[in-house]
Each structure stands twice: as structure tokens, then as C-alpha cells.
């Protein structure tokens, strides 16, 4: 019995390896997705972190040389005209005289506040100006013999508890989801080809006419698709490891570091998911009447794991989701990358549900292969 299963798995893999469509589907994703993610992260990081030097237009800087110097010490200056952001600081005509008379000296900051890209720059300038203002105020008080602390009744100390790795949960969620999803994408074409495709080519009836039990056939097909899915996952991890090296993570204060430990954990956690993905895809494809029908069904079915993982990375869903397949495992992986403790109970339970669903689907498939309707596509 075990020999026939091995023979079937071997045949499925040879058949699949010669099927350009099946191989390409896995390869495109494994190579394309990490590179696309990499590019996306680079753009994202470039946007949310302000570059070191901030160049703005300072009109009439000669009226407040001290302020301009102060801003320059904060890396805010006119700089090259080409690099300037669309922020203008205008110093009023009576700035110097008001300053000398201890009146409010007027500055005008002109910028489009609705522009997301300028937000952090505007805040940086405002903060810098307030600092300058506070410094000037303190100096004036000291000149009048008053301790500046008098005008600072409250001192707020902010302690940021976020470790550098626990920031950027969204980016982490996307990065890890992309890897988990590899398991679903890589084996999909093979799953359709070996079920709906096999029936379409009339070899399913022939296979069932041979002295092999439907259970063995199901086991062999699930194994073959799982092997393909896991190969896709391994390839995705390798490409990700290389590609993510080029993302300037340090600017975010955390990094998606694909260590050998992480790869090991990912493969262990990924195996039950791959088994479930394989049996789910085979089950759905056997239900479909043709290759094309199976493709359109699967596209819809694949939204489910995507939603589960989204729920995991955005924390929008109730806690019960933590026990569900895919989302539970994703949370464990995110915890691992963040350097937190892996929620073992949760991981065990979600892996168990994953395997339970796999078994149920395989059992369903075994039964459906005994049904005339499914075998002959009636």
C-alpha cells in the first residue's frame, strides 16, 4: 500500500515538474512576491521616516540670523533649491525690533497641512521653533532675575515602551502573510491539474479502475501538492532573506530579520498549513466540473486565508480568532519576529484545528471519489 502511494506521489511530482504552468505559478510568486514586498517597504519607509536634512524656503532669513542658525543646528535650512520641500517660513519685517522689545515676534509657516508627506516635516519645524521660543523666554526670565522653572509648573517625561522590534506591526504582518500565502499559491495549479484536470483528461476513471483505494489516491495527491507548496515556501523564504537585506530597516527602528531560526519555525508551522491548503484546493477542484471552473472557485476560496491573516495582523478581530487556522500561526510568527515569547498554547490549538480541517477535507474527498457524480463530472 505504501509502495503504491510512493509510486503515485512520484508520478504526480514528475508530471507536475513537466507542467510549465504548475511550476511557473509557484516560481512567479516565490520570486516575485518578496521582491515586490521589498520595493513596497522601501517606498513606505522612505515616506514615513523624515530624511536627516530638511530643506525649506526661508524668506527674509537675514532678519533673524540667530533663528536661522538655531534651525540650521537642527538640520533645518534652505539647502539646495531642488531639494526644498513645499514649506515656507516667512520672517516678518518687524521681527528684530519686536524681539528686542520683548514682544511677540511674528513668524509665518506656510505649508499644505493635508499633505501626508509633509506632516512629519511640519511637526519637526514646529517643534524646533517652540524650542527656540522656550529658550528665548527662559533667557528673558533669567535676565529679569526669575528662575525659568517658575513658568514650567509641570514636567512631563515620556517613556516609550515600544521596543524597536515591536513597532511596525502592519509591515511585519504583511511580510509574514506574504510568506504564509506562498503555501497557498505554489501548490494551487498542481492541485487543480491533478484533480479537475485529471478528470478532464479522462485519466481519473482509469486511475480509479486500478486496484488502489481512494484513500491512497487522496493521500498521494495531498502529499504531492503539499510537497510543491513547501518547496514554494522554502524558495520564498530564501528569496525574502536575500531581498529583505536591501530594505533600510534601521530607519524604522526594527527589522524583519530572516534568521535560520525563523526559517526553521516557519517551515514547522507552515507544514500543517500546507497540508490544509493542499486538501482544501483538491477538495474544491474535485467539486468543480472543469479546470476553469476550479480556477474560479479557488480564487474565491483563497480570500479566506487572506482575511484570517489580516485579522491577525490588524488586531481587529476578537480573541477567538487566535485559535483559528492561519491567523493563530501568523500571530505566533509575528511574536517570534518581535522577539516576544511565542504563545504556545495558541499555536498548538490553531495547528490542531488546521490539521482537523485537513483530515475532514481528506475524508470528504475520499468519499467524493466514490461518488459517480464526482468521478464522471455529471
Amino acid at each position, binding site marked *: 500500500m505504501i509502495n503504491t502511494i510512493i509510486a503515485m506521489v512520484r508520478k504526480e511530482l514528475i*508530471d507536475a515538474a513537466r507542467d510549465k504552468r504548475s511550476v511557473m505559478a509557484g516560481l512567479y510568486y516565490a520570486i516575485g512576491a518578496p521582491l515586490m514586498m521589498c520595493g513596497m517597504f522601501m517606498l513606505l519607509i522612505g515616506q514615513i521616516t523624515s530624511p536627516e536634512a530638511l530643506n525649506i524656503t526661508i524668506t527674509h532669513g537675514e532678519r533673524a540670523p540667530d533663528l536661522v542658525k538655531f534651525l540650521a543646528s537642527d538640520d533645518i535650512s534652505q539647502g539646495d533649491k531642488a531639494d526644498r520641500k513645499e514649506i515656507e517660513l516667512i520672517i516678518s519685517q518687524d521681527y528684530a525690533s519686536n524681539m528686542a522689545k520683548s514682544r511677540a515676534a511674528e513668524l509665518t509657516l506656510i505649508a499644505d497641512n493635508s499633505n501626508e508627506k509633509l506632516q512629519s516635516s511640519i511637526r519637526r519645524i514646529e517643534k524646533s521653533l517652540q524650542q527656540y521660543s522656550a529658550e528665548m523666554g527662559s533667557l528673558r526670565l533669567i535676565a529679569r532675575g526669575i528662575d525659568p522653572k517658575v513658568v514650567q509648573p509641570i514636567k512631563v517625561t515620556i517613556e516609550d515602551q515600544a521596543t524597536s522590534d515591536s513597532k511596525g506591526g502592519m509591515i511585519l504582518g504583511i511580510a509574514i502573510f506574504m510568506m504564509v500565502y506562498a503555501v497557498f499559491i505554489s501548490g494551487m495549479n498542481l492541485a487543480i491539474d491533478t484533480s479537475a484536470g485529471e478528470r478532464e483528461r479522462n485519466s481519473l476513471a482509469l486511475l480509479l*479502475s486500478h486496484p488502489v483505494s481512494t484513500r491512497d489516491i487522496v493521500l498521494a495527491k495531498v502529499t504531492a501538492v503539499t510537497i510543491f507548496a513547501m518547496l514554494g515556501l522554502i524558495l520564498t523564504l530564501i528569496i525574502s532573506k536575500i531581498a529583505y537585506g536591501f530594505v533600510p530597516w534601521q530607519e524604522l527602528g526594527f527589522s524583519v530579520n530572516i534568521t535560520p531560526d525563523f526559517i526553521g519555525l516557519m517551515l514547522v508551522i507552515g507544514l500543517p498549513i500546507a497540508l490544509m491548503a493542499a486538501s482544501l484546493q483538491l477538495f474544491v477542484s474535485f467539486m468543480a466540473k472543469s479546470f476553469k471552473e476550479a480556477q474560479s472557485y479557488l480564487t474565491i476560496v483563497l480570500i479566506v486565508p487572506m482575511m484570517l491573516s489580516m485579522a491577525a495582523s490588524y488586531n481587529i478581530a476578537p480573541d477567538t480568532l487566535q485559535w483559528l487556522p492561519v491567523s493563530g500561526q501568523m500571530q505566533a510568527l509575528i511574536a517570534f519576529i518581535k522577539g516576544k515569547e511565542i504563545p504556545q498554547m495558541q499555536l498548538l490549538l490553531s495547528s490542531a484545528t488546521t490539521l482537523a480541517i485537513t483530515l475532514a477535507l481528506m475524508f470528504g474527498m475520499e468519499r467524493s471519489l466514490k461518488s459517480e457524480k464526482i468521478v464522471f463530472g455529471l
Partner: protein
Amino acid sequence: MIKVANLSKRIGDVQALNDLSFEALDGQITGLLGPNGAGKTTCLRTVFGLLKPDNGTAEIDGIDVAKFPVEAKQQLGLFPDPFGLYERLTPREYVSYFAELNGLPRAQAKAAAASVLNKLHMDDIADRKCKGFSQGQRMKTALAQAIVHEPTNIILDEPTRGLDVMSTRVLRDLLKDLKAAGHCVLFSSHVMQEVAALCDRVIVMAQGKVVAIGSPEQLCQQTGKASLEDAFIELIGTDEGIAA
């Protein structure tokens, strides 16, 4: 030996098999003759356990297919219609794969495949992928698959359909060899010449029922006609759906 007793099967609104009973003996070529839609393929699929009969049993060498499908099917070779080739495999891989499914160890399966491919004069195409094969080459591959594990019983569904003279001859010679070696050969057809030329016994089917059983000569005598074709028409009572 293949024995079918009181088989009935309803597919949708059609009574495909209606209390069908017959035997195909070892060392004989038995032809299942009937017009299109007579239930030939349904009958063969039932023998293979692909369809479950509403009533009746199918036995292979005395083993009930419905009760012990794996054991029963080990005594069977199937030449299906359509062939169901794996286009990305070569005939050598294809044939040895099915030999393995029938319980042969890998090394033995490879040897058996090599010998059957040689026997069918397929050495020149044995290592080419099946994609792009001609109908004759496909037929040979399917045939090699059916006999590679040397089953006692061989079932062929419309084996001569779409074949040229050369391929038909190869097939005919092989069936005669199998018969001489004591195998039980059962094939369905609606081509009179084939049946007349090959069969020891003919089972004439119409509307899911056995109409007559006997050698081609007996059928001619029984109906008082000179040719099997005329006898056939006489037996089924209409000339609908007969390929000359």
C-alpha cells in the same frame, strides 16, 4: 472469468442496465455488441466498480467487485475509452506507473513495462512524451498499460475506434495471443467485422438487456441470416446506431 448477474442501473431517467446477466470465460474472446446507448460502457464501468449497480453483482474470478474492489481489480486490466493518457509522461513511465499501482515492485514494474513495450513494437516511441502521439500510438500505450501486469481478465472499451488498418491488426493479433495464453478477454464494440473476426462468443445488448448470446455462427443460424450484421439487426429489432 468475469461474471455479471442481474445487473440493474438507473442513470437519471434512463434505465441504463436492466437485469443484465452474462459470463465471459477464460481462454475466450467475448464481444459485447450493441448499438450506441445500449449500456455497454455502463456495464463495463460497473464491472470495474466505478459505478454502483442498483441491483445485482459483478464478479471477477469469483470476487465480488462491490465488496472487495481492490482484490477484484487486481485480476483486471482495462483498456478504457477514452484512453486517459498522461500527456507529460513517456509510455515507459506511464506503463510502469500502472504496473506499480497493480502491486509490482518498482524494479519489476520497469522490467514488465520494457517487455510489454517491446512486444508491442513501441521501442522507438517508448521514451517520447505522449503529447502529440497519433491515435495508433495512443492506442498501443493504453493497451500496454492494460496488459503490463498480466491480469487474467482484460476488458477493452471500444478498442478499435478511430484506428487505421495497421493498428487494428496489432490489436487483433494481441487479443488472439492473450486468448491463446488463457486470458479472459471481454470487449465492447459496435463494429460488426471486429466482432465477427475475433469473438468466440457474442453478447448482443440492447436497452440494457441481453438480447442473445452465442458464437457469431450460432447467432446467424438462430436468426436465419447470412451475415452477423443482418442477424444483429434482426435481434435488436432496429438498425439504429450501427456502424458498418
